[in-house]
């Protein structure tokens, strides 16, 4: 165990934990804002109750999401000081803007929303939840552009032994950033929508407040169907960007070893990393892989052998995570379309369907985590693709005992937070709307 390994483990654990709460925040806040808007427009009592009910679950989730975010910003300096020194001229910019232009909006107006019931006008109160939604979505934009720079660096020059920003417009127009933003944000909407649908399904199944929960189910199902389709569309764009800008990641995602043109897409694949081949490759759809990578059936797909061994990401983990994520993505489209159809036909009372929806709540969370494994493990061995390796990014002055201490501390505190947070969400979700 060295400082590099422990720092990577710590960042992975703390980022993954933080990202259990972030997508739910991004998705549910928009749905709660819609519910409150519907109450504002229609005056129907059930929209108010739903706003408060899902609002409470959102706040429990938000509390843990917000406090676990700071440790990620600080870790760049604490554990990755060589990285921070090398790319801070660029990478610090979106982080600073995120805090100034997004976090304040989110945090200040969330305080107003929580404590403003009956104290401020309904209009300003409604405005406050929308500002929270805008703030949290904007924060996602900035942090994903920071990440996009690590994946596809643009708008920079190398001077004085570091990376310097030369073109802020180019940084903001990074195609990788926009596609990544929309892919991630719509995926987060699916997390929020499945959460609302699953909990609504539970109460419909228990025949409690069926009228209200049918409404929230319907709202979330439309939101989810649109979002799930958008995740697919932007996922496809994303794959093309990856094959263009990060060919080694693309090759690992699809476990392609040899560079080929007019490549087919094998449905069954089992990679053999040490043998540099696939043990199983079956049910090939002709030309499909080339189309996925380039739009062109005869387009070239680079294979892993194109890259020296020390510049390839871990193949199996990247490949398996990608396949599982894509499979889940298709499942979400199917389930959300089915949900739309059933709630449109007012046929939600099917217990099997409702149970499926309840047990589907964790699946979009899982898909999100898998997506980040593809993004971050697939970028290895690079911290900034093509510019700086992860091994060069770590703080030179840390000792193993320091990082072990913090890792153990995070483990203890986050276990407690995770337990407390999910327990309270579960308890309040099951309790339902109080009359």
């Amino acid at each position, binding site marked *: 165990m060295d400082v590099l390994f422990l720092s990577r483990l710590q960042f992975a654990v703390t980022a993954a934990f933080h990202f259990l709460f972030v997508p739910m925040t991004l998705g549910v806040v928009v749905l709660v804002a819609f519910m409150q808007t519907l109450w504002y427009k229609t005056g129907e009592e059930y929209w108010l109750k739903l706003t408060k009910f899902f609002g409470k679950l959102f706040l*429990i989730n938000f509390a843990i999401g917000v*406090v676990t975010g*700071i440790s990620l910003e600080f870790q760049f300096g604490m554990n990755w000081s060589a990285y921070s020194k090398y790319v801070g001229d660029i990478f610090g*910019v979106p*982080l600073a803007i995120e805090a100034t232009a997004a976090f304040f909006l989110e945090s200040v107006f969330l305080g107003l929303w929580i404590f403003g019931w009956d104290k401020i006008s309904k209009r300003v109160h409604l405005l406050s939840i929308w500002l929270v939604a805008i703030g949290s979505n904007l924060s996602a934009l900035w942090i994903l552009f920071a990440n996009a720079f690590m994946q596809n660096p643009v708008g920079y020059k190398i001077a004085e032994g570091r990376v310097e920003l030369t073109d802020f417009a180019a940084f903001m127009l990074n195609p990788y950033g926009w596609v990544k933003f929309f892919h991630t944000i719509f995926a987060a909407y699916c997390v929020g929508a499945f959460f609302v649908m699953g909990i609504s399904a539970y109460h419909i199944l228990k025949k409690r407040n069926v009228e209200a929960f049918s409404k929230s189910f319907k709202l979330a199902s439309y939101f989810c169907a649109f979002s799930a389709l958008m995740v697919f569309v932007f996922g496809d764009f994303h794959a093309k960007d990856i094959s263009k800008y990060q060919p080694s990641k693309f090759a690992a995602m699809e476990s392609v070893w040899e560079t080929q043109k007019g490549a087919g897409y094998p449905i069954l694949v089992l990679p053999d990393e040490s043998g540099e081949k696939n043990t199983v490759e079956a049910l090939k759809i002709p030309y499909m892989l080339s189309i996925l990578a380039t739009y062109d059936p005869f387009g070239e797909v680079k294979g892993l052998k194109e890259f020296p061994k020390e510049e390839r990401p871990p193949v199996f983990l990247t490949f398996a995570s990608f396949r599982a994520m894509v499979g889940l993505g298709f499942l979400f489209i199917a389930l959300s379309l089915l949900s739309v159809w059933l709630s449109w036909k007012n046929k939600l009372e099917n217990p099997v369907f409702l149970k499926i929806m309840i047990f589907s709540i964790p699946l979009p969370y899982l898909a999100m985590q898998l997506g980040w494994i593809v993004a971050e493990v697939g970028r290895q061995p690079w911290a900034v693709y093509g510019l700086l390796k992860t091994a060069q990014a770590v703080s030179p002055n840390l000792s193993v005992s320091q990082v072990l201490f913090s890792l153990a501390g995070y483990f203890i505190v986050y276990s407690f937070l995770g337990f407390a947070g999910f327990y309270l969400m579960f308890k309040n979700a099951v309790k339902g709307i109080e009359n």
Partner: protein
Amino acid sequence: MEFFQVLWYVLWSVLWIAYFATDGFDLGAGMAMNFISSNDSQKRAVINAVGPFWDGNEVWLITAGGATFAAFPSAYAYMFSWLYIPLFLLLISLIIRGVSFELRGKTEIKKIWDIFIFAGSFFASFLLGAAFGNLWAGIPVGPQGYLGGLLGLLNFSGILTGISLTVFFCFHGLLWLLHKIEGNFKEIIYSKAKLFWYITVFCLALFLIFLPLSKNPNFQKNSFSGWLCVLFYALSAISLISVKKALDRGFVFLSFLLSFIFIIFWAAGGFAGQYPNLIPSNLDPVFNTTAFNSSSSLYTLKIMSAVALIFVPIVIAYQIWVYKLLNHKINPEDPSTLHY
């Protein structure tokens, strides 16, 4: 180039000062909560008094961190990796405190959250004070980096500043609670605040007598920034004395504002005194990390200046607006004023 480096030294200081002056009162209220309350509704009153604001206040810390990263990347890299353990403990303190404010009201067991609120607020305040006390006094930075070791911050200047900031925040928090809370509980807070004023004055006096900056070999007494430093410390002392006058006459909100100004000037004194060093070395000035040798490129500083000049005023404006909108009083005996 130099203009923007100086500007960012100033902005960097302003962001830290804004953090101290705003989050200071909710950290202080968090520390005071268990000691001034005799029942659960009084504790709830304290939490409701800071509940809407603590998170927005804490964003000043994230912004200060982000601004250090963007404007002075190598200072960010050194400061955060050299002070690894103290920063980790600061993060854990802030995590357990924030989550306790939010979750305490949603659970049956209150004890553990009460301990977290105190411990998180106390350690966060003390560690911030200890860290800046060390920066003001200068830290042992040699050719191989920081030589202070694991407990390097716990020297005289660090402990003095840590305790001082903890006391200042407690006082600041009591004044905020005095402004927000009414009923019998207000009388209790009022008497504690009056008492705490003496402790605060005592700490400020100790701090100024054993001034950490006086140990800093880089402190330039006869320079513009040196004179500013003296001026700021003088103004902070005057502000603290005026708090007492306002408090005695019952101008509660004014006394809070004066304490706000007191903390601003106190912190500003330190930042003026350490200028232009972000991380002063007390071994040899060659190893100082300054605004001039650690800054980002001119282009990045310009972009960041535009961002700061547009957004910081907007943020301050809506933060004040929200404070005004939530200007209602809280009474522990009136459950309708207790939300959490």
